[in-house]
Every structure is written in structure tokens, then in C-alpha cells.
């Protein structure tokens, strides 16, 4: 099929229109997805072929009349070739016994943005990182042709507190990009790109840093000792994410007990055996907390 199209195109292009013969008047540019018409010259019946990227049209036409194309006929942007093949004449024939005339034209993307591909990275970023967020957009028309004409794209980051930071950029060859700062407060941020009426959203989690300090308290709970940390925060005062592992270790003569506890609502709590003289410590990541000497004071 492709070989046949190529052959037709080559044959068509090799034939120059002779005076008084069939000819076509195509516009140099046609917007994808728009209806248009083409005048033909000459007389008699002919076949009109249009070959382009991923499309091949064939029409029976009456030379000298106008040929109309519907909005759905040409949707893919790119370079096209149209050529007429007359089957009724023998003069100036090609190898198939038909005359031919060809023209070239471009189908260009529509001007209205219908889709935006939005790449926002990273998905998670620490708070307070200058230019840490990268946003890249590609703008497309309704037929998913990359719109090469400059388009205005605005970018907006809204943090968990509702504060917004905006920037805008103009597409260059269909692509617009910016870099933005991460917020000072941890939480889920909404990252939006807007082009025309199209709005694309991504979620960027702005996460606190490592725990800055950790402190626990203990009290007896029957035969065991109940341990509970204060709310664990990073050095900017942001609460460390729930699920972060806190390790409690109890050392006593001849052995030890440990338990890894995830933070829940900023606090880790557990119970361990109450052994007189035991030393209980707490840690998360590389941060060590206080020690409690059970039965011997803290």
C-alpha cells in the first residue's frame, strides 16, 4: 500500500502540466479539520489523489468543476501532495496510459488548543527548594497535531494553605516550560497548566525535611511501660509525614527489645516490657532522641 502511494506520488510529481490540460488550484496551506474547496481546470473525468502523513484520499472529479472537501477529510498536519489522473485521454500519457497533474500543499494544525500534555516533576519535593519544580507543556489541537504557532501557557502552583504562585510562558515550536519554587509549608500542592480553555492538573507533594529532634515520655501501663513521642517535626517546624518509622529500643542486662513504630498523627506510641534498670531510647532516621532509665529516673 505504502509502495503504491509512493509510486503514485512519484509518477504524479514527474508529470508537469501541459498547457490546456487538467490542473488544480490548491491553497498553499489548509488548516486541519476545516472544509475547503479546490477549482479544477480542463474537461472530462479524472481521479484526484491526495497523499499525506497517514492519509490517502481518492475522489472521482469532473474537470472544470469545483471539488469540495469536508472538515473531516484532512485532520493530520503535514505536507501533502495532490494529483489528478485523467483516464480518458491518450495524449501525453504516462506509463499507465493516463495524464497527470500534481500540486503540493500543507495542512497546518488548528489554532485552538484542545489538549495539553503536562509533565510536572518531581512528584515529591522538599519544602523551600528554589526552582525545584519543573513544568513542561506540549499544546495540541483537537486532532492532536502539535500547535507550532506561539501559544500563551500559564502555570500555577497552589499549596496546601491556598497560597498561589503563577508564571507564564509562550510556546516555542509547541513547547513551553518553566521552573518554579516549592512552597515553605509541607503538604499537597496543586500544579496547573492552562492554555486556552484547557486546564491540566498535577499533584506535587511538598514534603518536610528529616526530623530535627525527637523526644519521648514514658509511664507505667500494668506490667509494661507505655512510650509516646512528642509530635515529630523537621527543622522548619513542619510535621514529619505520618508513616515515618520511629524505633524504640530497650536495653537491659542480657538482652534487648525493639519495636519499629510508624508515626500516626505526628506521634509514635508503643508499649514495651517494664524491666527495672532498663535503658529505653528512641530514634528516627539518623536522629537520636532522649533516653529513659526505667526505674532509675530519666
Amino acid at each position, binding site marked *: 500500500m505504502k509502495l503504491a502511494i509512493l509510486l503514485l506520488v512519484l509518477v504524479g510529481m514527474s508529470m508537469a502540466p501541459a498547457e490546456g490540460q487538467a490542473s488544480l488550484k490548491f491553497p498553499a496551506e489548509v488548516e486541519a479539520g476545516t472544509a475547503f474547496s479546490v477549482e479544477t481546470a480542463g474537461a472530462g473525468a479524472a481521479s484526484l489523489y491526495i497523499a499525506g502523513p497517514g492519509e490517502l484520499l481518492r475522489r472521482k472529479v469532473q474537470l472544470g468543476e469545483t471539488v469540495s472537501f469536508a472538515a473531516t477529510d484532512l485532520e493530520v498536519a503535514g505536507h501533502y501532495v495532490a494529483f489528478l489522473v485523467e483516464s480518458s485521454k491518450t495524449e501525453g500519457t504516462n506509463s499507465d496510459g493516463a495524464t497527470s497533474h500534481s500540486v503540493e500543499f500543507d495542512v497546518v494544525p488548528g489554532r485552538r488548543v484542545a489538549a495539553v500534555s503536562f*509533565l510536572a516533576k518531581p512528584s515529591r519535593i522538599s519544602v523551600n527548594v528554589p526552582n525545584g519544580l519543573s513544568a513542561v507543556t506540549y499544546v495540541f489541537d483537537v486532532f492532536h497535531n502539535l500547535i507550532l504557532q506561539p501559544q500563551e501557557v500559564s502555570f500555577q502552583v497552589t499549596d496546601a494553605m491556598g497560597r498561589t504562585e503563577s508564571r507564564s510562558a509562550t510556546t516555542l515550536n509547541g513547547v513551553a516550560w518553566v521552573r518554579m519554587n516549592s512552597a515553605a509549608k509541607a503538604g499537597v500542592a496543586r500544579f496547573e497548566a492552562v492554555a486556552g480553555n484547557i486546564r491540566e492538573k498535577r499533584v506535587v507533594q511538598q514534603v518536610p525535611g528529616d526530623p530535627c529532634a525527637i523526644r519521648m515520655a514514658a509511664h507505667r501501663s500494668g506490667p509494661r511501660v507505655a512510650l509516646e513521642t512528642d509530635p515529630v517535626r523537621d527543622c522548619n517546624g513542619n510535621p514529619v509525614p505520618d508513616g*515515618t518509622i520511629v524505633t524504640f529500643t530497650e536495653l537491659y542486662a542480657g*538482652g534487648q*527489645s525493639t*519495636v*519499629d513504630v510508624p508515626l500516626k498523627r505526628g506521634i509514635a506510641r508503643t508499649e514495651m516490657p517494664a524491666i527495672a534498670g532498663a535503658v529505653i531510647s528512641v530514634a528516627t532516621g539518623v536522629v537520636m532522641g532522649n533516653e529513659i532509665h526505667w526505674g532509675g529516673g530519666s
Partner: protein
Amino acid sequence: MNGGRILGIVLMGATLALVVVGTVWPDQSGASTVDAQARMEISGDSPKGAVDSLMVQMGRRDWEAAYASLANKAEFSEGEFVRDVNGSDGGLRTYADIVGFDEQALHASPDEATIRANLHWASVVGSFTDSRDLRVVRNTDRWQVAWPMAKQTRVPPQVVPVNYLRWDVIDRGPGEDWGTQDVEAPHVRIVAMHPVDRGAGVVVLGELLNEDVVPAFVTVRASLLGGKDAVLATADSFDKISHVLLPKQVSPFRIDFPEVRLPQVSGIRIQPSSSLVAASADPVIGIESQKLSPVPDSSLSGELVNQSGQVVNVAHVLGTFYDGNGQILWVADQYPSSALLPQTPEPFSIAIPADVANKVKNYRVVVSTYSSDRLR
């Protein structure tokens, strides 16, 4: 034509004869060790015979016969006996088979004997041994085993409040445009790596940290490089790692290369990989009464305490052993054979090679859990 018919009749007759022979005298050559030991299934005319008989019946899961043979069956029901031997609550033991046993006489008198029976079990994650000291008593003219029921602590009925914390992941849909990217994979980091020559081959030991704020499913792959960076062997940590790491959690890993010797190795390429996974922060497992036992039975033992109200079917205990400089000496693991019931201590014991045990100055234990009623 006649010759072919005769041959057919002969073949059919031979087939029928073989079927009859196979049915009447089944071949036991491919059976398990327990069935091979079935020849010892003799009547209880001696303490050893009584124990042998019981072991074989348990190996065949002939619970009715095993229970009927017990001297103290009035003390518990058959169901309780089966749960005691074969496990319950979807624990590892419920999926395991007895593949053999051995015995050791501890005490004998005309009317009573004590025999230590070691039941060898095989499961999908390895083998384990269950030792029971069995009291065998003479009952008129035959010997019977008095089964030592393991006493299980009963937790009183109660409500255990849990602030359930879990992470779910929304992936891009199958029809999404390419610009709709997935959330990126968690950031993990190798924080220690140390190859050792264990005689039988090279073992790569190390630790992996989830430094992200989301849970990660992790694996570690290592390639041993020889001369001119040629890859000698590649392997991954398989189950010698805790695959699901919560934020800031560290897992040890061990990768075995039985075919390679350390002098052959000029370099090691380590590839940790991580992916986002829906995970739960519960249950929390306390690891209590950890204690190192010296050689000859060098091991790290302790008790797992399930602090949640939910049954953990299978637990995986991983131990990391360090020398005085904090360098990893060994990584070993164990799957306790019983399920972890809420707030009920379950013992574990991780064997340590004797040459390593002498150098161990510190250790760390982590537990990963699997529950059938929860997706991790």
C-alpha cells in the same frame, strides 16, 4: 492380522496385570521420608514404637488415628490436637508438611519413658524443626504417647482501637495520554554493602534505606565483576530482604553467589530498585527479649509480639549482625511457623554461623508480615 490382534490382547492383559500389581503393592520409592519411615509403624509394644507410630500418622495427616492413639486424649479434643500440631490461623505450619522425624530417648522406666521427637517440616520458604518431649506411658500391654499440648495464652475479648494508616496509589490509566505521568518511584539508597567469602561462595551483605516519605517495594540485584569488568554472576536478594519499606525504614539484604570465590571478584555492581506500592503501616510488631546465645548453638532468639488486633498469618524475621566497628558480619532470617495472634508472644530463633557468632557485638532485627485478609 491375527498376529496384531494377539499382540493387542497380550498388551491389554499386561496393562491390566500391572494396574492390579500397582494397586495391591504400591511402590513407596517416591514417597516422602515419613512414608519411607512407615515401615516403623508398628504397634505400641515399646515406647519408641508408640512414638514412631504417632509420628507416621501425623506425617500422613491421619489425625483421627493419631488422636485415638494418645494416652491423654481426654484432656483435649481432636480439633485442638490438630491445631496444636498443624497450626492454625493461616500460619506457615498450616501450609507445611512433615517430611521426616527423629527421636532421642531421654528417660526410660518400666512404665514410663520420655522421648524427644524432632519433627522436620518443609514449607515453601524453607524447612523448620518442631521438637517435643513426649511422655510415653504403659497402658496395660501397650505404650501410648501423652501429647504435650502447648499452652496458648488467651487474650480476653476486647476492642483494640487502631488509627489505620495506609497509602494507596493512583496510577495513570491505560488510555491516558503520554503526558500524564505516573507518580515517581520512591527514593531508596544503599547505606551499607560488604562482600564476604563464606567458603561455599561469595555473599554480598548490605542495608537499604527508604529515604522517601512514601512506602516502597524494594529489591536489590548485584552483579559480581571479574577481570575487564566481565560479569561473573548476577543474583538478587530474593527473600533475604524486607521487600516493603515504610518511610525511613532500613532493611538488610543478603545475596548469595555459591559459584564464585572472592579472589575472582574485582568489583560489584549493586542495583537497588523501588516502586510505589499500596501499603499499610499496621500491624506493629514488637521484638522483645532478644538474646544472643553463644556457640555451639549460636543463635539470636526472642519473641514477636503483635501489638495490633489483627492476626498476622506469616511473619518473616531478619537479623543483621555487626562487629565492633559497625560493619555487617551476617544477615540471616527465619519464618516462625505459627501465626502471630494479637498481643500473644511468639518465639523466634535465627541461627548464626559459629564463626560469625564469636565476632558479633551488635545486632538489629526487623520483621515483615503477611496477612491474608489484607493486601500489602
